């Protein structure tokens, strides 16, 4: 029996539930079932950073559907298309069920003992010859907190390698960096509840309607209420979000700092700066004031293309709104001056004193569901519990907690960021790269380069995943992993709300949870503490959670008051949760005291233009002692700009129906049918110039690679083209189509997040092979070969040798 509460594919956000002032967000329970469940198990959706509470329906050992959790603070029962349909992936026939080892060039089935022993033997051999600096870990935004913490401890205190990062580096590193630079520590000042009461919402580089559909429902409900907020959107594309904007500013890519400086210029001009707040609770305002002085609307128009009158309209609203919630995402984080721009959003709130109060908050958003936890636990390289790698006292705390010598924990410089890990692998000094639940062969910039690295003779690649991804094809060992619904653990959303997600069914075949794999590795490596006891003293997710709680004691992300039992009681709970705040903390900084004092701060800060670290001495000399830090920035031009050869800007982004590289969402028929293929979106003006019509095949080339996509005309500015980045080759190796074939290997100096949002490209109609310029056919063939090398190519290759054929017509997707 199939049952669904609504057709979420065509009705993405569902019906409106308006509510008056002071009324809570009404409940609406969404569900999608393929059969009547025998029992319900508590879960949390892990397909975007919103983290909606839900129940998983189970029958005869299989997941048969999901139902939104009415009591949950995050969604009040709602679920979006991904949440309602993504669960189908668990039961895919192509799940990995046995470990694989590459023998004679082919991946062949092996036992867990064989696979783990091989990894351990390799690890030991590399450590013996090159120290643990020869090992690198690249994790996900999909694992659970307990798994990340275990990974962090085995890496930092077991192996002692600084080479650990997650693909959250590609999506959320700037959120962490911006929060640290302004407030001294990671952690969102605001909460989702602020959206229910605010007078104004500003989305900067954030297409929330497509990315966090349930959160957007929350805003749509406000827009349908008697007291709708004003909405300001800053985005170069006309997205679903932008359609609802009171003012939509359309800047050229890479000019966020100019626009935000212009808005602050206007606020200062309007005289509505909160002088009292600035004097009492911040440092650095005078420099900001001097810096933004020259960013008049006319100058900003020159730099960004935003009409001066439009900027004035937005400035007028921001100068006078009583409350403001800002959200920031990839349009800022993956673009030029990422951290500098994200920090300007913080500054805008600070100069108006709009923080720490109901209706006023900043959400430096996360792109991945469990990104917050990689940052908290140190699986992305940061130190666990938001500790400061530059502060010896903080390292000492960890050494004591883990009972290891201080010098075991690598802290001689900031931990190695993802792009550098890959660079070390390219140069051969990292010899073993262990990748978990992520797909760099589609998600990293400049894929040709990533494929070459993965194929390097002397690099031993371990991939731990549920599916044979584009990346797993290059592995030397593949470990089959259990996923969501098949294991228990917790994770934290943007609103700092911790949820539990429980094991509902057994993983298929011999697949194991990531936690069990890490624990097994630690045991086989025989990591010990100073007293000769096993370093890792926990054995399952709940005991891992208990260990983690100790690590957070006294830190901003204090989990000490949480238990699994409490988390199962009805809803997620926002940290800090401790004796002082037993029910959690909806909003940070309500006392306007920020975690910036030198002995407590998570960082001493970095130079926005170079990334140079501020030293402890320098920081202590001007210890902000609890005041927020206003840090100004001047506009700088992107690193690659269009020219005669590559005259157009490329930008990339996400679609409603897919998460990451579609490893799961591509295996849900509903989601896949809704958005079956990539496309290149271009303006009617550019379409006319190049003689292109809707659905024509287009060749898009950059200095690094090429893709072939179908044209989708409209809703974008002339000079800019857009490609959704989810699509790799596992289900269509007939043509290069991953947007990251084109993107550049550059990153923000502070957050080290890659610049996916701009690259110079050229386009041409792709119809007759004969018409292709010299050398191009070779490049295309090479690119396709690159896609299907590694493991044996899927069967579809031959049948498509005639060239790309359209699948179904794509939906227009904001």
């Amino acid at each position, binding site marked *: 029996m199939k049952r669904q509460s609504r057709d979420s594919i065509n009705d993405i956000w569902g019906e409106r539930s308006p509510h008056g002032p002071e009324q809570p967000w009404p409940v609406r329970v969404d569900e999608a079932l393929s059969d009547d469940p025998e029992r319900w198990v508590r879960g949390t959706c892990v397909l975007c950073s919103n983290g909606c509470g839900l129940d998983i329906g189970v029958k005869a050992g299989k997941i048969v559907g999901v139902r939104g959790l009415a009591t949950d603070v995050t969604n009040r029962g709602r679920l979006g298309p991904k949440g309602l349909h993504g669960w189908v992936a668990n039961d895919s026939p192509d799940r990995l069920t046995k470990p694989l080892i590459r023998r004679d060039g082919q991946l062949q089935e092996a036992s867990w003992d064989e696979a783990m022993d091989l990894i351990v033997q390799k690890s030991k051999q590399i450590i013996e010859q090159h120290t643990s*600096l*020869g090992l690198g870990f690249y994790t996900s935004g999909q694992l659970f907190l307990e798994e990340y913490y275990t990974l962090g401890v085995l890496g930092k205190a077991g192996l002692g390698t600084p080479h650990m990062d997650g693909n959250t580096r590609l999506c959320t590193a700037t959120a962490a960096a911006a929060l640290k630079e302004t407030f001294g520590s990671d952690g969102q000042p605001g909460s989702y509840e602020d959206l229910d009461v605010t007078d104004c919402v500003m989305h900067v580089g954030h297409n929330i309607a497509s990315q966090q559909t349930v959160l957007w429902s929350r805003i749509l409900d406000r827009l349908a209420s008697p007291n709708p907020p004003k909405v300001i959107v800053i985005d170069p594309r006309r997205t679903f979000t932008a359609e609802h904007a009171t003012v939509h500013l359309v800047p050229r890519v890479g000019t966020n700092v100019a626009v935000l400086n212009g808005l602050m210029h206007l606020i200062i001009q309007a005289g509505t700066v909160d002088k009292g707040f600035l004097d009492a609770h911040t440092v650095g305002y005078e420099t900001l004031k001097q810096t933004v002085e020259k960013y008049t609307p006319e100058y900003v128009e020159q730099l960004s293309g935003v009409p001066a009158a439009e900027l004035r309209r937005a400035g007028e609203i921001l100068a006078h709104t009583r409350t403001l919630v800002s959200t920031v995402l990839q349009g800022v984080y993956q673009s030029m001056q990422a951290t500098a721009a994200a920090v300007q959003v913080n500054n805008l709130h600070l100069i108006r004193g709009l923080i720490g109060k109901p209706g006023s908050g900043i959400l430096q958003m996360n792109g991945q569901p469990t990104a917050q936890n990689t940052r908290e636990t140190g699986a992305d390289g940061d130190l666990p519990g938001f500790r400061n790698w530059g502060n010896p006292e903080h390292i000492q705390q960890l050494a004591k907690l883990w009972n290891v010598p201080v010098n075991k924990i690598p802290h*001689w410089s900031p931990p190695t960021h993802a792009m550098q890990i890959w660079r070390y692998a390219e140069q051969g*000094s990292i010899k073993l790269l262990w990748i978990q639940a992520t797909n760099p062969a589609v998600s990293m910039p400049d894929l040709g380069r990533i494929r070459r690295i993965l194929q390097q003779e002397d690099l031993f690649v371990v991939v731990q995943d549920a599916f044979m991804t584009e990346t797993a094809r290059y592995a030397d060992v593949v470990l089959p992993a259990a996923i969501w619904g098949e294991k228990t653990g917790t994770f934290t959303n943007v609103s700092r709300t911790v949820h539990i997600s429980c094991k509902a069914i057994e993983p298929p075949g011999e697949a194991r949870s990531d936690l069990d794999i890490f624990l097994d590795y630690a045991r086989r490596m025989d990591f010990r503490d100073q007293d000769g006891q096993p370093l890792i003293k926990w054995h399952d997710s709940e005991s891992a959670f208990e260990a983690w709680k100790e690590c957070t004691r006294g830190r901003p992300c204090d989990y000490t008051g949480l238990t699994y039992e409490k988390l199962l009681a009805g809803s997620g709970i926002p940290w800090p949760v401790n004796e002082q705040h037993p029910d959690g903390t909806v909003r940070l900084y309500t006392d306007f005291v920020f975690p910036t004092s030198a002995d407590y701060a998570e960082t001493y800060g970095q*130079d926005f233009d170079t990334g140079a670290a501020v030293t402890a001495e320098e920081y202590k000399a001007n210890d902000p002692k609890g005041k927020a830090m206003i840090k100004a920035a001047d506009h700088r031009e992107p690193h690659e700009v269009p020219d005669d050869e590559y005259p157009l800007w490329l930008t990339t982004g996400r679609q409603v129906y897919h998460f990451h590289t579609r490893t799961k969402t591509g295996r849900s028929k509903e989601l896949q049918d809704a958005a079956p293929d990539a496309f290149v979106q271009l303006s009617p003006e550019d379409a006319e110039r190049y003689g292109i019509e809707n659905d024509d095949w287009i060749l898009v080339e950059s200095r690094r690679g090429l893709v072939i996509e179908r044209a989708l005309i409209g809703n974008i500015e002339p000079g800019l083209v857009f490609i959704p980045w989810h699509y790799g080759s596992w289900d269509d190796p007939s043509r290069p189509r991953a947007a990251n074939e084109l993107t550049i290997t550059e990153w923000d100096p502070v957050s080290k997040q890659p610049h996916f949002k701009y690259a110079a490209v050229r386009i041409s109609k792709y119809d007759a092979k004969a018409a292709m310029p010299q050398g191009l056919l070779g490049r295309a063939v090479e690119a396709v070969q690159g896609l299907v090398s590694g493991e044996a190519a899927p069967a579809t290759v031959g049948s498509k040798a005639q060239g790309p054929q359209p699948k179904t017509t794509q939906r227009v997707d904001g």
Partner: protein
Amino acid sequence: MHVGNYLGLARGSEQRLVDALTKVAEHHGDEPDISETCQLLASWSRKHIEHLKPLVEKYGEDKSPEPANLETALFHGPRTGSLALMRDLHDVWLLTQQVQLCWTVLEQAAQGLRDDELERVCQECGKETKRQTAFFLTRIKQAAPQALIAAS
């Protein structure tokens, strides 16, 4: 008066730094952060040279062979490989120190001369030179263990 001598030394040293930064940027293109940042830092040094022009007109300039000699002494790159990157960063760091000391010496003279303009230039440029040094130090600290221990 020997202010012109030091102005020449400052200008020459900045020019050496520009040359070294440009070479390192070009040579280490596979290290995107090094390449991009070196280009940015070179643009700062070029600007410093512009700032020095009116001062040179005012005080004259003794063309000094020293900076050229210094580059030979301090900058041996660019070279290839992980250790070589380390050595190049090391050398460029030394060059920034040379420039920094020029600003300090000139700033002292500016105070003695009560030349506000010279003092302002020394302070502003000196601040940026310090940021150049800080970048190389941060990057060197990050790269050192890998280059010295794990790289072949």
